[in-house]
């Protein structure tokens, strides 16, 4: 073990959020900006997302995941961001006070250098998210091989050249599952169906059109996989209908023959390190509580990307990564200016997740939110008292919505106002 390594801005995770944070931190003037990444190359989840659909906002054309990352990594190289690859951050301590400011300390592991302790003037958490695994679902039956999360299968097929199976059922209509349905068909597999427990699709509707409809893959709403069959290898699953009371309809069970089950049943922000460091986690999002500067409850720790809230568009991830990186750089240089107000965002009915959750009125801010159940028709997002409103043609759980708030309007609110209510009105 060597001595304490010192950096100005440390970024944990080299996915789109971390890389964007690195670029922005250097542009803001921070000297030593290091991104720590456990994988052998930077890029995060995008390296396995070989389908198109990335970067329309950022680059003005539709790129695949690896192409998007390639372009962003060039920006990082030009900006002088350092990458410490094959390096896992395995522990994060509670930030310590140093020169009247806080500093972050954490521990990394690398196969050639062993274990090191790092002290950083500020940190950006950009660890991404993980998939909800089979164990979290309580499915009855045997425990054969052939059950994968959709993202694990995506990595096998797209990066390791391995086929998880030949006859595939998919549970859940998350985007990764829809993308993998098409991918498995193109690789010669038979996709027998996609089963969604809810009365609506959880992924983007474009993925229903271009991944399922284009390839005549059937999907079923209000149906769930309730039992696995097979010794050694999966031989089939039992699928059951879900009634209006959200309970399984007895007698509706049917056997579906398959050798592979892919799970696309949700993503959970990856926050073990955040918890170790004593950072406050927002129960609604599962990520750190953040203000508009992407600052967490520890003033030297910032966060961006899927670690905060699960995004469906990488362009938003990059944008929020830049915001976090710029804030972290300013903090490291002793010139981060918070606003002088503090508002809590209070989400209204049917708003399931919202980020950021705290506003200090330092700068204009985009608030991201997701609805809990779909509103198929005109509706209006409003931020009160009297901050802004925006008409929507619909609001669906699979698609994030945004509403912009201006700092000057927040500052002008009466001193006794401490809550900003964000609500959805059906028109």
């Amino acid at each position: 073990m060597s001595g304490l390594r010192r950096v100005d801005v440390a970024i944990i995770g080299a996915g789109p959020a971390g890389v964007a944070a690195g670029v922005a931190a250097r542009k803001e003037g921070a000297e030593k900006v290091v991104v720590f990444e456990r994988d052998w190359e930077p890029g995060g989840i995008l390296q396995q997302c070989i389908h198109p659909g990335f970067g329309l906002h950022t680059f003005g054309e539709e790129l695949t995941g690896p192409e998007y990352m390639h372009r962003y990594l060039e920006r990082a190289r030009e900006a002088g961001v350092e990458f410490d690859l094959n390096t896992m951050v395995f522990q994060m301590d509670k930030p310590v006070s140093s020169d009247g400011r806080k500093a972050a300390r954490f521990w990394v592991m690398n196969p050639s250098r062993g274990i090191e302790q790092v002290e950083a003037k500020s940190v950006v958490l950009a660890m991404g998210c993980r998939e909800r695994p089979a164990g979290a679902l309580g499915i009855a039956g045997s425990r054969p091989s052939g059950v994968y999360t959709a993202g694990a299968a995506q990595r096998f097929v797209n990066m390791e050249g391995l086929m998880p199976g030949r006859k595939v059922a998919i549970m859940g209509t998350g985007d990764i599952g829809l993308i993998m349905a098409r991918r498995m068909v193109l690789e010669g597999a038979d996709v027998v169906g996609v089963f969604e427990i809810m009365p609506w699709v959880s992924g983007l509707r474009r993925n229903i059109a271009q991944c399922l409809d284009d390839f005549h893959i059937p999907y079923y709403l209000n149906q769930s996989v309730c039992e696995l069959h097979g010794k050694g290898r999966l031989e089939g699953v039992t699928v059951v209908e879900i009634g209006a009371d959200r309970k399984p309809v007895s007698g509706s069970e049917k056997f579906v023959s398959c050798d592979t089950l892919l799970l696309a049943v949700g993503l959970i922000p990856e926050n073990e390190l955040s918890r170790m460091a004593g950072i406050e986690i927002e129960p609604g999002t599962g990520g750190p509580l953040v203000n508009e500067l992407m600052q967490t409850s520890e003033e030297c720790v910032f966060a961006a990307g899927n670690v905060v809230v699960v995004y469906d568009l990488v362009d938003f991830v990059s944008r929020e990564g830049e915001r976090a990186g710029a804030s972290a750089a300013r903090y490291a240089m002793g010139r981060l200016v918070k606003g002088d107000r503090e508002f809590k965002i209070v989400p209204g009915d049917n708003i399931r997740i919202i980020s950021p959750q705290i506003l200090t009125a330092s700068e204009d801010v985009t608030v991201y939110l997701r609805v809990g159940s779909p509103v198929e028709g005109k509706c209006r997002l409003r931020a009160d008292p009297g901050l802004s409103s925006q008409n929507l043609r619909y609001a669906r759980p699979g698609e994030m919505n945004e509403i912009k708030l201006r700092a000057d309007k927040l500052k002008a609110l009466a001193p006794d106002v401490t809550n900003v209510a964000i609500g959805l009105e059906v028109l």
Partner: protein
Amino acid sequence: MPDVKKFLCVSCPVGCSLSVTVEGTKVISVEGNTCPLGEKYAHSEVANPVRTFTSTVRVRGGSLPVCPVRSKTPLPLSRVFDVTREVAKLTAEPPIEVGSTLIENVCGTGVDIVASRSLPKR
């Protein structure tokens, strides 16, 4: 007799629901699009649906055993399985540069298959 076709524009993640009035293969009007791309998509979808094709090719001696590829521009949806079979025959040699052409004019579609990442030797 005009006929109304309903489908989703997949040109961007917004995914607008289009209502397209057609007479045979002639588009009379497009509704539901938010931007001009939707109109363009409606015409192409009625005449000859095209999609960007993505897959992987085998690589010998690379830092990964497969390399992701894409069609440089969209190609006819009806040819996707032919293209898949053609791409499956290829084994690429590293180092591979992002954007480099791996198959020219795949299956006579006039579209090239290019690498969508760089891949060094092992």
